[in-house]
């Protein structure tokens, strides 16, 4: 039993090492900066997927509203970059909205350290407060999912309605990156720097997640998933554990969002919609929930499918293809891509070779 656990981990470590290696050298091999930008976005999605996997795959809480935290991180970063590039002037949508001074709550975003703190603090505090009330009221299962959806919807409406503060449904556009402009061959060095920093963050998030789930803490999360009452009656304060992992997940999603803006050059409220939040769940489900590596693989796999399928003649039907992949995964391969290689394929080989031995 113990041996299997170690072996499983080894598999994912090797797998992650291969991914990291490929990613690390990819910007040197790929000539087009747009492809590198895209891979960078995929890394950000992977970070969000890991965040979601921690609370869904491990703790059994399906959040259908992680877009809100992704966007909070994204808006914080975008506003810092926008203000930096504007050189002290307020943004165009604030001028259109009739403002002449920077609103007080955006003031901290003029400085990089404060913006960085806000990227972590704002989603962290929000998730902590939401978690405190939600988990104290013993809201779980589908009701938890519904509440997360409702909160995302509320935040979405709030961002749309206050266009002079948030840019409405245009969001914050024309954003460069922490390291300056990253587009085109002339700015390749900036892009490389940004890419590798993001890769480093992805590695750190992966290590952190692995560290947590392989400790007693991780066992407790799984225990909460598989039998919350039993865990509770064993003397563990389930609520605190759930709240901690929910808050951590929110912060990781925000970090993913903040990095995403650097590559994407804009952030809009559509990243905060329920449908986008559900897309994030699909990444985790297809990759393999309950495995950190599965989240990473899923995020890359689904986004690459989207990127390559949604042009030319397939453009009209690509969403059906993604839908079919998702449905097939749910019905036949509940462990996702990782599950296929970890359990279903070995079982098949075993059965096959067993037969041969008999013959």
């Amino acid at each position, binding site marked *: 039993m113990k041996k299997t656990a170690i072996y499983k981990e080894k598999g994912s470590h090797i797998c992650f090492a291969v991914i990291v290696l490929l990613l690390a050298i*990819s910007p040197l091999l*790929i*000539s087009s900066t*747009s492809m590198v930008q*895209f891979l960078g976005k995929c890394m950000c999605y992977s970070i969000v997927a890991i965040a979601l996997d921690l609370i869904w795959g491990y703790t059994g809480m399906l959040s259908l509203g992680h877009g809100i935290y992704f966007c909070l991180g994204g808006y914080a970063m975008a506003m810092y970059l926008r203000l930096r590039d504007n050189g002290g002037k307020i943004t165009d949508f604030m001028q259109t909205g009739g403002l002449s001074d920077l609103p007080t709550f955006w003031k901290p975003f003029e400085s990089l350290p404060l913006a960085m703190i806000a990227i972590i603090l704002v989603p962290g505090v929000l998730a902590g407060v939401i978690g405190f009330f939600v988990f104290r009221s013993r809201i779980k299962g589908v009701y938890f999912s519904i509440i997360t959806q409702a909160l995302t919807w509320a935040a979405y409406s709030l961002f749309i309605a206050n266009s002079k503060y948030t840019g409405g449904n245009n969001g914050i556009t024309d954003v460069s990156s922490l390291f300056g*402009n990253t587009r085109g061959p002339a700015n390749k060095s900036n892009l490389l720097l940004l890419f590798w920093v993001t890769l480093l963050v992805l590695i750190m998030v992966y290590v952190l997640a692995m560290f947590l789930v392989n400790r007693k803490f991780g066992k407790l999360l799984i225990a909460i998933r598989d039998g919350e009452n039993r865990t509770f009656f064993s003397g563990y304060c389930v609520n605190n554990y759930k709240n901690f992992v929910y808050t951590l997940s929110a912060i990781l999603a925000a970090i993913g969002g903040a990095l995403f803006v650097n590559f994407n050059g*804009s952030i809009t409220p559509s990243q905060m919609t329920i449908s986008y939040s559900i897309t994030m769940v699909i990444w985790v489900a297809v990759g393999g929930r309950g495995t950190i590596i599965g989240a990473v693989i899923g995020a890359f796999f689904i986004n690459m499918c989207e990127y390559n399928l949604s042009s030319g003649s397939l453009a009209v039907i690509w969403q059906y293809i993604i839908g079919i992949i998702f449905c097939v995964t749910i019905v036949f391969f509940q462990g996702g891509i990782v599950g296929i290689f970890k359990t279903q394929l070995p079982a098949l080989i075993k059965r096959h070779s067993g037969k041969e031995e008999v013959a």
Partner: protein
Amino acid sequence: MKKRVISGLIATMLTMTMVVGMTGCGSSDSSSSDTVKVGLLHSMTGSMAISEQAVLDAEKLAIKEINEDGGVLGKQIEYQEEDGASDASTFATKAEKLVDQDGISTVFGCWTSSSRKAVKSIFEDYNALLFYPVQYEGMESSSNIVYTGAAPNQQIVPAIEYLLDQGYTRFFLLGSDYVFPRTANMIIKAQVEAAGQTVAGEEYADMDQTDFAAIIAKIEAAQPDVIINTLNGTGNVSFFKQMSEKNYTSEDYMTMSFSIAEEEVATIGADILNGHMVSWNYYQTTDTEKNKKFVAAYKAEYGEDRVTSDPAEAAYDAVYLWKAACEEAESFEVKDVLAAIDSGKISFDAPEGTVTIDGENQHLSKPVRIGQVQDDGLIYEVYSTDAPVEPDPYLTTYDWAVKAGIKPLE
């Protein structure tokens, strides 16, 4: 043993995924010797797909016609379609894919302001060229975008002027809650108040709101004599249906809409919209020789039941204007084409009349037409400007706008 097999398998699979993801990286050759490639970037899936399909069809029709006519500078036009999936970030990703990875320098695309704003800096950074075919809220001009739809002074401002001339005094502003209605209403308020008339109310509905009972009650209380409608999409259907359920017609409350074209009339119902006013630069009924040909070609290509509309016509013009600019420049290079455009000499004898690209702000000078919906589902012109109206995206030539502080952004 098995351990190694499995991790090997996983690794192989991942590598394959990567390879699949990166295919096409090497192919950045934009055009072979006898073709030139352009990009078509529109939403083919998602909530905007219905609207953008008409624009996409018009662009393909123009490309087909030009190809049959011998192409541009002797080269056949090839196009590559990308799906923006009604999401601004996807538009950004796809725009970058087109202009960088696929090496395409000219793209026709976008509909919503949010998608245009998301791709604007990409076209500027890669020095590529975007033709944007939809009327919008103005307050923008990028040297890498040609705006072939109307600026506010070619749609909104003349419509309000017309209403003021007709003696309307109480205006009620109703719109969907996003940037176009909010900016449009900011302009309208300044204009109406400068003329000494009243804005009786201003209401915004959520993008997918279907219940307008509260808003209709507010309209009844405010007693306006005209409703300025900037609702978009499904909101229009619900609003007009609920107005007609209360037996209100254009006699009770006249409306002036900026987002209702022929396609929308078909969805809402001509009987409901009968007599209401709209403002555009082009209608299917516009009486020019070119338009007869355009409507006939459009219907022949896509079916008798299809209608042409202002955005579709502007998209059709965009392709021809690009052709004219390339021919003037005798080159497909963006810097040469932009130089030709900036000369201010690029014009096209369009279905709406002659349109010319303003070299300064890269918008079109185009005629403005106020129309009225009739019970056959078509829109008929009731007023038009004598000559094409020069584009003024920042409204700098209007005293009341300058006074109200509507000015170019720093």
